[in-house]
C-alpha cells in the first residue's frame, strides 16, 4: 500500500503565516480548509496530549472563521439559525461546535469547531448579499476575519498563569468563565481571548493581528517555557475535546 503523500504547507494556496516555524518545530500537517494545519509534533501522542493538558499552544490559523458587523448583524445571523445571546463580550456555542463571539452589540466573530469543516461559515458567507430591495434591509456587513487575525489555541492548567505574564486580564478559571471574551493587549499587541474549554482542560482561543503572527507565536512560547509548554497539534486538541 502506498503511503499517503505528506501535506506540505506551501503546496497549498492558503498558508499560515507561521508555517515555517511550525515546520522547524517538527509539525506534521494535514489539509483543512485549503490550508495545512499542524496536526501533531513528533510521534508520541501521549506526550503531546499531556503537554496540551498542562501547557500547549496550537496554530489554527488556516481553520475557517468569519465575521459580520454593523446594524442588523445579530438579527440577520439569528435568522440564519445562530444562537446569540444579549450580552456582549460573550461567545455563544453553536450546535455544530462553532463559537459566535459577540465582540460588540453589532459585531460577531465566528470561529469554526475543531472539525474545521466550515459548513456554517461557508453557508453564511454565501448567504450574505447586498440585496436589491429599497431601502435595503440592514443585515450588517461581512468582515474578513479569516485573514485579519491569526488564530491560536492556548490550552492547559497553566494557561492562566502563563497569560498573566503577557496580559493584564485575570484568566484564572474561577474568574474568567467559559465563553467569556477579553479584548485586550497581549504581549503589547491587540488581541481577543475567548475561553472555550476542551473537555476538562482549560482552553483559550487567542486571535490577534495576522501580520504579527510571526512575533506573537514565539512570544507566547517564551512565556510558556517555565511551564514546560510548547506547540501541540490539532489532533491533541480534538482528543481533549473528546
Amino acid at each position: 500500500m502506498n503511503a499517503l503523500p505528506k501535506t506540505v504547507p506551501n503546496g497549498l494556496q492558503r498558508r499560515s503565516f507561521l508555517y515555517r516555524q511550525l515546520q522547524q518545530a517538527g509539525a506534521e500537517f494535514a489539509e483543512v480548509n485549503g490550508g495545512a494545519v499542524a496536526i501533531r509534533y513528533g510521534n508520541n501522542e501521549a506526550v503531546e496530549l499531556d503537554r496540551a493538558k498542562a501547557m500547549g499552544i496550537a496554530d489554527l490559523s488556516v481553520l475557517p472563521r468569519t465575521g459580520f458587523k454593523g446594524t442588523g448583524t445579530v438579527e440577520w445571523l439569528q435568522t440564519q439559525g445562530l444562537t446569540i445571546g444579549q450580552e456582549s463580550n460573550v461567545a455563544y456555542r453553536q450546535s455544530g461546535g462553532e463559537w459566535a463571539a459577540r465582540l460588540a452589540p453589532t459585531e460577531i466573530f465566528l470561529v469554526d469547531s475543531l472539525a474545521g469543516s466550515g459548513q456554517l461559515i461557508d453557508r453564511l458567507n454565501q448567504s450574505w448579499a447586498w440585496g436589491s430591495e429599497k431601502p435595503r434591509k440592514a443585515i450588517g456587513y461581512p468582515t474578513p476575519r479569516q485573514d485579519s487575525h491569526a488564530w491560536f489555541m492556548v490550552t492547559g492548567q497553566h494557561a492562566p498563569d502563563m497569560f498573566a505574564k503577557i496580559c493584564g486580564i485575570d484568566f484564572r478559571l474561577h474568574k474568567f468563565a467559559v465563553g467569556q471574551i477579553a479584548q485586550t493587549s497581549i504581549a503589547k499587541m491587540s488581541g481577543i481571548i475567548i475561553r472555550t474549554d476542551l473537555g476538562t482542560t482549560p482552553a483559550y482561543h487567542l486571535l490577534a493581528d495576522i501580520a504579527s503572527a510571526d512575533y506573537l507565536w514565539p512570544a507566547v512560547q517564551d512565556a510558556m517555557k517555565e511551564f514546560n509548554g510548547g506547540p501541540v497539534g490539532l489532533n491533541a486538541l480534538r482528543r481533549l475535546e473528546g
Partner: protein
Amino acid sequence: MTASNQMGGINRLPAPRGLLIDRSKQITFTFEGHSFTGYAGDTVASALAANDAWMISRSFKYHRPRGVLTMIGQDANTLVQIGDEPNCLADKRAIEPDMAIEGQNYIGTLEADRGRMVELVKKFLPVGFYYKTFHEKRDSWRFWEPIVRAMAGLGKIDLKADFHHSYYDKKYLFADVAVIGGGPAGLAAALQAAETGAEVILVEESPQLGGSLNYARFDETGDGGSRTSGELASRVRLQPNITVMTNAICSGWFADNWLPVIQGNRFHKLRVKAVVLATGSIEQPAVFRNNDLPGIMMGSAAQRLIHLYGVRPGKRAVILTANRDGYGQALDLLEAGIEVAAVIDLRPTPPQDTMTKAVQRAGIEIRTGHAIAEAMHIGQKKHVSGVSVAPIIGEGELGKAVAEYACDTVLMSVGYSPAGQLLHHAGTKFGYDTRSHMFKPEAVPAHVFAAGSVNNTFDLSAVLADGRYAGWAAAKDAGFERGSELAPPVERGAEEQTHPWPIFPHAKGMEFVDFDEDLKIEDLINGIHDGYDSVELLKRYSTVGMGPSQGKHSAVAAVRIVSRETGMDLRNMSVTTQRPPYTPEKFGHLAGRIFDPERRTAMHHRHLELGAQMMPAGLWWRPGYYGAKADRDQIIRDEVNNVRNNVGLIDVSTLGGLDVRGPDAAEFLNRMYTFTYTKLQVGRSRYLLMTDQTGVITDDGVACRFHDEHFYVTATTSGVDGVYRQMLQWNAQWRLDVDVANVTAAYAGVNIAGPKSREVLARVCHDIDLSPEGFPYLGVRMGTVAGIPARLMRVGFVGELGYEIHVPASYGEALWDALMAAGGLNGIRPFGVEAQRVLRLEKGHIIVSQDTDGLTNAYEADMPWAVAKSKPFHVGGRSAEIQLKNGLTRKLVGFTLKNADDPCPEECHLVLKGSAIVGRVTSAVHSPSLKKVVGLAYVHPDDAQPGSTFDIKVHGGRIIQGTVVPIPFFDPENKRQEM
C-alpha cells in the same frame, strides 16, 4: 583575612539554630580571592560571619571598614561586588557555588585600603563641600573633577565588557487584598482577610514567613515566637484563599493600590482593592564615637545571625539597650555560648519584667543610666575591641567614662522607627508620638491599612490583634463581610521601646548618624548653622538620607538633631519625603522582557529568500531592495529600469485598507476627503487626499468603488490607523449610515507594474477582461488571480501600466509565487521601496509626510486639482481656503539642477531666497530614466513658476541652483500608465 574551611565556619552554632540554612548542602565561594564554605540558605554576610570574616566593605567617603549592621538588607554597609554586578546586598544575597565576591570602595585591597587616608584630610571635605567649593570658585572644578570622579560611585562596571542581557520578565498578580509583610501582624491580617472571604496575596521579603517571630525573643523561655510563627504560618498555608510570596518585596505603593512586587528576576504588577501594610519597624542605631566599626550591629542583626543562620555574632558582647529586647538578646547570646560582658541601659530605671530579671539571675552586669561613650578598635578600625561607658547626665550628654569593657561585639537595641515607606508613598501622614518617641501613622488613606509595629504596636498579642483588625477592615473595604466585626487593640505596648535621645556627641567626633554617607553629628550641626535649618534643606545640603539605604537609620536622628539645633518641636516635624522605590530596583526589573511587536507581510519570507534588504515602515518590515548592500545604488537603478522597460513586482501589503460600506458611504468620503465621490462609478477609482481641521494634509490613497455602497479605501502604511480613528471619530458626530472596517492586515497586496505587466497577469487571470478597454486606467475589478479571489486596481503610482492586486492575506505568498512564476518568461523581478520612491518621484507623485509636513495644505503642495469646489464641506476645507486667501508663503515645485554637474541635493537641504530660508528639498534623486537630477522642493511662491531658479544650500554650505520644471518629469502625458 583568614579563610576557613571548617564545616560551615568556625562561628557556626549547632542545630536547631539556623532556620534558613540547609546543613546538608555546602557551598564554596570566594571573597576577596579567598575560598569560603557556607551552607545553602546562607547569605554572603552570614557565610562570611560564620567564617569570622566581619569586614565586608568600605564606607563611601572615608573608606572606613564596615561589616554586618542589620542582616536584612536595610543598610549600605554590606554592598559587595559579585562578579560583574556591583552593589549587591551581602546580607540579602544567597551564596551560590563558585560565586566570586569582592568588597567595594577601596584602593588596593579591602584589608589595606589606600583610600582610608581620606579620613586624615576630612577637615578639607566639610559638609556642603560642593556648595562651598563650586558656588563661587567655579574654576576649581578643573582641579576637583578628576578627584570627584575617581571617588564617585560604588562598585565597578566594566564598560568594555561584552554585556549580556539577563532574562527579566513581568507578571500580573490578582487578588482582593494584598498584605505586605509576613510577620505576626501580616500573618494575622492575611488569615483574617481570607476568613472574611477575600482572596489574599501575602508578600514577604524573607525566605520564610514569620518575620520577627523567627528570631526575636518574646518571652523568657525564648520559644514563644517560633511557636506562634509556626502556628500562624501553617494556618496560612492551609487557607486556600491566600497566595504566599516569599523572597518577594513590594518596592512601592502607587495610585489605586498598584503595587510592584519584585521576586528574583520577575517584576510583578499587583492591583488590589485594599492593602494591609504590615511592614514592621526598623531598628535604629545609637550614635556614639566609632559606632560604625565591624562587630557593632543592631541587636536584631545578632538575633538573625543566631536564629536564622546559626552563626555566633562574636565571643564577648556588650549590649547597649533602652528596651526589653536588649535583655532578650542577652539571653539569646548566653544560650548560644557567647559571653555577655555587660548590658548598658540608657534608661535610669528600666521596668522590671521577667526578661530583665532573667538577665539579672544570669549574673550579667547591668549598668542603667549609662551609655557607650566610645568604641575602641583593633588594626586600623577593622573590628571593635571594646567600649568605654559613661553616665548620662543630660539629654545626649555624658559624664566622664567610668568603665571599659573588652568585647568583640556590640549590640545596639535602643529603639525603632516604623518601616513606613509604603505608607508614605500612599500619602499617609505621620506624627511624632511623645509617649513612644516614634513617628506613627496618623491619617492613612482610603483602602490602605496599617498593622503591627509600623502602626506603633509592639506587644505581641496587640500586634496580632492589630493584624486581625486590619485584615478584617481590608476585606470589608474590598466588599467582603463574613464573620463578626473586629476592633483594633487598645493597648499597643509601644512605650519603653525607643529611647528619645540615643545620640551622644564625643569630643573627638566620628559619631556616625548616616553610615551611607559618612555623616557625623558635627556635619549635621554645621549644615544647620550654614543656614540649611530644615530637614528637607539639610538633606540636600549634607546628603543625609540620600545614600543607598535612603535614611532608614539616619532620618529620625537627623530630625532630632535639627529639632534641638533649631528649637523646633518634634511634634511638628517629620522625616523627609519618602518616594518609591523602597529598595533598589534594577533596570532589568523595570524593563522586563522586551515586547517589541512587528508586522510582516505574507510575502516576508519570500523577500528574505530573494536577498532583500528589509527596512522598517512603522511596525512593518518592507523590502528596500533585493541584493547586497554594497551594490545598493546599482540594484535600485536596475530595479527601476526593469519596471520602466519590462515588468516588476512589489509587495504593497502594508498599505492601509478600509472597507467603507453603507448607504451614506459616498457622502462620508465626500466629507472625509478633499475630492468628490458621489458620482464615482462602480468599477472606478479616484485619488484621495485627507486633511485635518486646519487644512493640513494628513494622508492620501485611492477610493475604489466596488458597489454603490462599498468603497475600498487605501491609505498610507503609517497613516491608516490614524485615518481609521479619524473616520470613527467624525462619524460619531455625523451619524451617517456607514460602517468602517480596517482591513489592512486581512489583505496582502502586490503591484505588478511595467509595460509587460498585462501580459504576465493574463497568464494567471482568466475571469477579467484585461484589455485597455475592458479594464482601463483607474478601473477596479473583482475576480481571481491564480484561482485566488482578488480585488484588482489599475493605478499609476510608478507611472507604468500596472495592477494592484489585493487578496486575502493567507493567500499572499501563493499569489506572489504565481506571479513570479508567470513572469519568469518576461524576466519579472521584484522591486523594493527604494526603487518605488525613484519611480514615483520621476512621476512627481508626493509621499505624504516626506513631501508634506505638519503645516502643508493642498495649495502649498500644488494640488488644487485634488480639491473639489462643488461640494459644501470637507474636513479642513475652510481652513485651507482661508490660508489660500491670506497668501501662500511657500509652494511645492518640481525641479532639476541648473548645472547638471552639481551634486544631487538631499532631503531637508535648505532652499534660500537671498539669505532667508524659504523652503527645503523634500525629495531628490538622480533619475535612472531621465539621466538627471529631479526633485521636489518648497520654494518661495514668487519662484514657483516653471523656469524660475532658486538657491539650494547643500553639504558644506555650498549653494547650487535649482530650476523649476513642470511635473511629471517622466512621461508627462501619462501615456505609459494609461496604455
